């Protein structure tokens, strides 16, 4: 059980270190305050909504601290996959284990789920939205705010702590939603198209921002996206799914080490190669 005095995000130095170009995602055990990532194992997973078969068959292993991108055509069951892993839904068949635990309630306590929409509560100010998981676990508002405060500074939200959700820009709302997910203090982050609702420029900015934020974390991440480039830029590995019912058609490693600036990263030849392969798999799978 985490206590509220723990800051769930790594020290800024480690952000700089990764920014200098060393291996993109390093599980740094010297940061005891960050929950270390745990493994996620998925075997023979299948899921249907009544007659509708959504996931045909899926096998997947996510190592501790690994960032896995999942891409696939719209409606192929990507969001369902996240809901299944998180324990919000029970699968029709197959096994899902988070850190070896396969009961949905055990998975729920280990996974933080960031839905597609930011879902900020309009009646709370930004910092209370970000700290809601701490409040849910019984912290007083003052304690929860104190825990969230340093993150606002670190993630470029300083000065917006007391701003109502409706008055924040789209990018800021997504940052607050991400902080809310981080502050839940879970070892696994499930991100469902976190930037789908943003305009192109904000989206590029936010991708760069999230890359930095994830590099500073040792958590295991599953990032769902319909954008191959976004998935490759943010993840260690990208799983390409077929249209519904979903099955894996390719598992592509992102080129590492990568440069932090997004433009530099996505125009490197290794990256464009990987992107072409992923796109090809996506088209092949759709046939």
């Amino acid at each position, binding site marked *: 059980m985490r206590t509220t005095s723990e800051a769930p995000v790594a020290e800024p130095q480690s952000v700089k270190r990764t920014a200098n170009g060393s291996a993109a995602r390093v599980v740094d055990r010297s940061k005891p305050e960050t929950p270390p990532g745990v493994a996620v194992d998925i075997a023979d997973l299948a899921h249907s909504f009544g007659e509708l078969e959504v996931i045909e068959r899926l096998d997947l292993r996510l190592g501790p601290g690994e960032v896995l991108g999942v891409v696939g055509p719209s409606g192929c069951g990507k969001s369902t996959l996240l809901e299944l892993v*998180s324990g*919000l839904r029970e699968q029709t068949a197959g096994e899902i284990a988070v850190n070896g635990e396969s009961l949905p309630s055990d998975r729920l306590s280990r996974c*933080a*789920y960031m*839905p597609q929409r930011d*879902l900020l*509560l309009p009646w709370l100010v930004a910092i209370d939205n970000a700290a809601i*998981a701490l409040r*849910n676990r019984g912290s007083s508002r003052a304690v929860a705010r104190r825990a969230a405060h340093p993150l606002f500074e670190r993630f470029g939200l300083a000065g917006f702590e007391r701003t109502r959700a409706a008055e924040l820009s789209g990018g800021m709302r997504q940052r607050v939603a991400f902080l809310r997910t981080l502050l*839940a203090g879970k070892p696994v982050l499930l991100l469902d198209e976190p930037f789908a609702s943003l305009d192109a420029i904000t989206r590029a900015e936010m991708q760069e921002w999230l890359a930095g934020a994830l590099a500073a974390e040792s958590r295991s991440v599953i990032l769902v996206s319909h954008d191959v480039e976004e998935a490759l830029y943010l993840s260690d590995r990208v799983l390409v799914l077929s249209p519904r019912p979903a099955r894996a058609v390719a598992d592509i490693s992102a080129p590492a080490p990568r440069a932090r600036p997004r433009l530099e990263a996505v125009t490197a030849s290794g990256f464009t190669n990987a992107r072409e392969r992923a796109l090809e798999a996506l088209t092949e799978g759709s046939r």
Partner: protein
Amino acid sequence: MRRWLPPIAIIAILLGLWQLAANLDVIANALHIEPFLVPSPSEIAQSLWTDRALLADNGWVTLQEVLAGFALSVAAGVAFAVVLHVSPTLRRAFYPLLVASQTVPIVVVAPILVVWLGFGIGPKLAIIALICFFPITVNTLDGLRSVDPDLVKMMRTLDATRWRTLRSVEGPTALPYFFSGAKIAVAVAVIGAVFGEWAGSSSGLGHLIQQASAQLQTARTFAAVVVLSMLAIVLFGLLAVLERKVAWWGPAQTRSQ
């Protein structure tokens, strides 16, 4: 100011026409009744002034009944809505009964309640609560059920208990709905008080209206009605102000009124 001009103008014109018609005995002649039975606005205004002590005393009695009955139905209505929201089984079981309670004519029930509960404030509270309960419960329940299911899901992954989700997500979602119901309820509460007083009472505006009209004091009857409407309008206004203060995220904020 421009916003208030049209309603003020309309009211002024209508009052003017009424005054003119009463002075010229147009209404009385048309209805073949004695002219003194049709009070003019100025006579009503005069009654408001000369009977001010009488109106204030009886108005105070009615106001107390309305406030107590309304408070009772808010407490019961919200509690009932929460129970019906949390338990689908109870919702299915009680919802038809809830609707049925509204089909019972209050005018019929009022004398029975007086027989059962006596001539004190009891039957008035019961009648007001019976009328107010419905809009409050139904609106609050609709509000609780209108919550975004994704928000509830999100709260589950963020370790919220059922109670926490109810308090911090469903409750605030339902608050603007509650106010819509409460505003309807407070307006009809005044009618409920009058019915209650008619069924058996020795004070209150309803009693005054009954007495005055039996004695053909039509100006006083109208004066009591004016006070009664004012009471309802002020209570409604206070609730609207309160709503804007505590439920500012609701639709009322974006409405033009």
